[in-house]
């Protein structure tokens, strides 16, 4: 495997999440000279390589749980990094973004893994938004100036997601103050869509913050 794991911890609580370099996978999977992610079989091969990588990544529940009271299987956050991918066509966006999300959405998902996407700037953004729209999915994407929510979502979902992203975490006692009386159902809905983390103690965490927490914990045991 040629993925580029980023496991550095800055020690200030802003460590980077574990990343998978999609361009490196393209190079190894199809020997494309230009890091061009095109054609359906290529996208499928890259998605399968990512899933294989994820299957090998099993976080320790005791060491990575972001909330002490949590008893559910520990979450893991993976950043799918398109930074070095030049061309991303719709077939590949469908496989590497939409189908990957779908695989980890349902109750039969192979792991409790959340996804962030990086470098979905204007060059890739259009393809990603189109495939998300087609499947009714949303995703958390770094479009160059921080994480954004892409794909179909209601205005209430957007508002709740933006608030959570700004606060990073919202504890059970702060929910109503931060989001009003519908805060809890909204965050639960975002969590069901795998766009936020709902903890066992009634609090919520933004995926970007969760990624930093998990990485800090992983860095601490290295």
């Amino acid at each position: 495997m040629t993925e580029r794991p980023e496991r550095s911890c800055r020690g200030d609580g802003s460590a980077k999440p574990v990343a998978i370099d999609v361009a490196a996978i393209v190079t190894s999977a199809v020997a494309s000279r230009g890091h061009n992610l095109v054609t359906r079989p290529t996208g499928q091969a890259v998605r399968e390589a990512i899933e294989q990588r994820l299957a090998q990544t099993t976080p320790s529940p005791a060491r990575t749980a972001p909330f002490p009271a949590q008893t559910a299987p520990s979450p893991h956050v993976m950043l799918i990094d398109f930074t070095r991918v030049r061309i991303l066509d719709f077939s590949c966006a469908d496989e590497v973004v939409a189908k990957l999300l779908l695989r980890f959405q349902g109750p039969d998902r192979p792991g409790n893994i959340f996804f962030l996407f990086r470098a979905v700037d204007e060059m890739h953004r259009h393809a990603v938004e189109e495939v998300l729209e087609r499947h009714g999915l949303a995703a958390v994407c770094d479009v160059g100036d921080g994480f954004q929510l892409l794909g179909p979502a209601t205005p209430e979902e957007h508002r709740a997601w933006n608030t959570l992203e700004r606060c990073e975490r919202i504890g059970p006692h702060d929910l109503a103050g931060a989001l009003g009386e519908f805060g809890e159902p909204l965050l639960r809905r975002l969590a069901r869509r795998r766009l936020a983390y709902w903890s066992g103690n009634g609090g919520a965490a933004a995926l970007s913050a969760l990624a930093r927490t998990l990485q800090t914990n992983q860095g601490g045991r290295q």
Partner: protein
Amino acid sequence: MRVVEIPSSLDYRNVDAVFAEATAGGAEPVLFDARRLRWIDPNGMLSLLCAGQVASANGAAARLSLPAGGDVVGYLDRMGFPDAAAQVFHASPRRAGRTPSRASDVLLEITSVATNSDVHEVVDRVQSRAGAILSRTLHYPAAAVVQFSVILSEVCQNIVEHAEGPGWVAAQRYNWTRRLGRQVLVIGVSDVGRGFRESLAEEHAERFGDRWGDVTALEAAFLMGLTRFPDTGRGQGIQQIRKQVARWQGLVSIRSGTARIADSPAWHPSPPVVDGLPGFPGAQINIVLPERIDD
């Protein structure tokens, strides 16, 4: 031997007549007489190849005569037509001295597409030349080369996934001084596979009932994004090509069976659907991207 006269000018507007004549006969040998040819575009070249391949498939020996000289010979050479024709026609056409195409208006020489590796090869190969033509000549923004590459990828994948047979792609810049007063980029994609009606039939014909035919199949793919795959993620390619070409105020048309469907811009008024054309067994996709003119 049956002789099919090729007109002096051959492009997407008159290839139907040539194709009808070429495919009308049986197993009799056919000569495609293109000695009067003076001008041809990518669609014209790919149509000649398709016509030759269909004639050969009928059991006939297909031959091709090209002009003895003139600009068109050099152009055909730069586009790699002799190499492609040698794979189709019984006697390989005469080759002029090969002229490097890097400095010309050729964006993509005639390239055979049969596998996904071919699609990668096409996308990898056009990057530098596409950037130059799109930004300097058509005055598109720098990011257009990415969008153009996506279009190219999707049209080529259409051959691999739906034609179930080989095809070709080619692209060339032209100065349409008289026709439009602008530079254009013409992209032609052709195959002699099974066409849209047959490709979609198993999955969709039943629910369309008596209305099922070439027009309905093209409308299903072009307007509704239907494919032969039940996967909801499929069928985005043509839809996205239409959207992007419309943003650039371009023309996109698909010809398959006896029908053609098109998104026509204001500079090229034409009916959105035409039926009753001579039968074409595969599919032809024609895209014309005009030079950008600020309002």
